[in-house]
């Protein structure tokens, strides 16, 4: 409860973790607000069905609030003026020169604030992925402010969880992205860091995942717990195993 999880990927694609968390929280009965900036709704729906969850059903019963970034962006760029509806687009920062993500935060807050008839367990905010916001014109400070506001609203006030995906690269030239990723690392309770193998491409082992539990954030003077596994992604499943013990080798 009240945890901030950071999903970070380097040299590979960590989106399978996003799919996992989405179906995990939906199955657990939580109310989920999913800010999906990179892919369309049908993509997530199809993968979720393979994992056993139906996103359309979850949307209909009000358990899932889905912000499809691509669609909102089209409405913003090609739609008529929206002053009459009174609801500013969550991606409004794209067309304004002041890049603050307040509209996006308001959207998140209104969708996760429990209404009287809700009976879901804790709220969850899921973001895929944060690096896209930088590409769309938000400054790193604005992105960090947005995450901070979300943490206050979701983790502290509503006792929910936040899961965010960022991309990063070791020798990346994208300094703004690295700034955001590193800063979030310091604030996270749990970091799942997915990396491509250092030895290069391999058919049987798709990468390695580092699980870092930030015990150092609590006041018990413990060190961070780091666990490293390797994984292979299959059509409906991901198998994890200890390093060097892939099924192809044994």
């Amino acid at each position, binding site marked *: 409860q009240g945890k901030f999880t950071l999903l970070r990927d380097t040299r590979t*694609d960590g989106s399978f973790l996003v799919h996992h968390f989405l179906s995990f929280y939906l199955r657990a009965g939580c109310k989920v607000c999913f800010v999906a900036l990179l892919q369309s709704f049908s993509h997530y729906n199809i993968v979720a069905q393979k994992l056993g969850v139906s996103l359309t059903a979850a949307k209909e019963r009000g358990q899932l609030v889905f912000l499809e970034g691509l669609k909102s962006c089209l409405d913003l760029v090609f739609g008529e003026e929206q002053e009459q509806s009174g609801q500013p687009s969550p991606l409004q920062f794209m067309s304004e*020169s002041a890049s603050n993500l307040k509209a996006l935060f308001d959207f998140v807050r209104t969708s996760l604030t429990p209404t009287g008839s809700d009976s879901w367990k804790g709220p969850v905010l899921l973001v895929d992925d944060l690096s896209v916001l930088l590409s769309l014109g938000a400054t790193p400070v604005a992105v960090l402010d947005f995450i901070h506001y979300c943490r206050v609203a979701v983790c502290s006030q509503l006792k929910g969880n936040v899961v965010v995906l960022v991309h990063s690269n070791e020798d990346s030239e994208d300094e703004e992205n690295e700034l955001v990723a590193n800063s979030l690392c310091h604030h996270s309770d749990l970091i799942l860091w997915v990396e491509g193998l250092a030895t290069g491409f391999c058919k049987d082992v798709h990468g390695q995942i580092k699980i870092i539990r930030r015990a150092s954030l609590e006041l018990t003077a413990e060190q961070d717990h780091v666990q490293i596994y390797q994984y292979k992604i299959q059509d409906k499943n991901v198998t994890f195993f200890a390093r060097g013990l892939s099924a192809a080798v044994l």
Partner: protein
Amino acid sequence: LVFTEEDKYGLYSNLLFKYFLAEGVVCGHDLFVASAKDHPDNILKELPAPLLDDTHRHELGEEATAVKCEDFHGSMKIAWRYQNLPKVEASPTTSTKFGHYYDVSKTMSPELSQSIKWHSFYLPEELSSQPKMKTCNMNGAYARLLHSIQRIIYQEGFDGSDPQKKQKTILRIGIQSLGSMLWGDDICSSDTPEDIHSLTKFLYVLRGLLRKSLSACIITVPAHLIQNKAIMERVTNLSDTVVGLESFIGSERETNPLYKDYHGLVHVHQIPRLNSLICDVSDTKDLAFRLKRKLFTIERLHLPPDLSDTVSRASKQDLAESAKLLSSGCGAMAIGKKHLDF
């Protein structure tokens, strides 16, 4: 969204671009061509002609049988360990036909290219005609291109919004040399461009348009000119497929015996992972291309056998470096940094 990094002189990426459009013509798809450099009419006149099935299959068939004959002639004596490995196929097999083949030395007949509906966007013409429009803080040229694409998608019914205009075909969009100076963007000329987000915003909106409609798009970009590499990373993130073409013209690799059969390398930086957890990763990642008189082929990179008389070659160190970057699967020897001279 297929994103292609151009090679230095743009020769081969242009070829790939034309292939994409030609495939569209042959399959009966609609086309949308956008360019700031060449007029789309000229681009369309220069599309390669499709090869008639019989002649080409005959040629490929001959090659395949010739290769098979060598196989039977003798089992390997020295490298017998390799005997059990499957034969490495240099070019795609003839049995699975996907798409069409094209003859680069001929241009497509006008009847064929006029048989489909095509739309064009030529930047110098557009700039003079249209009035100002909502730009979302984006470069004006990009904004116009987006509005133009969106208008075509809407009017021709590719987005399914109008039930009366049911579309049976898809729209193939080709955008040439995006990001270059001709589009009014200075990312290719300066390290700290004025608006660093124009290109990425454009790609994001384009991605939205593509996801919402029956269309596919190829974009070529002079990536070697973009000074700020952060932009390339963001762009890679926003595209489905990213392919880079590196030609050997003018570089030291042209005379390198390692690469003597090829004209350039193909770097596949990213492949789409759509609608599933996994993506279809091929076995090998080293691809090279060559332009024969009639065909443009992409093959696995083969190291030629090291048959020199002298023990060490002139650029052996370079060879070793490049060989280290290649994955195994070639039939040649492993070259290490140190040589054991006997």
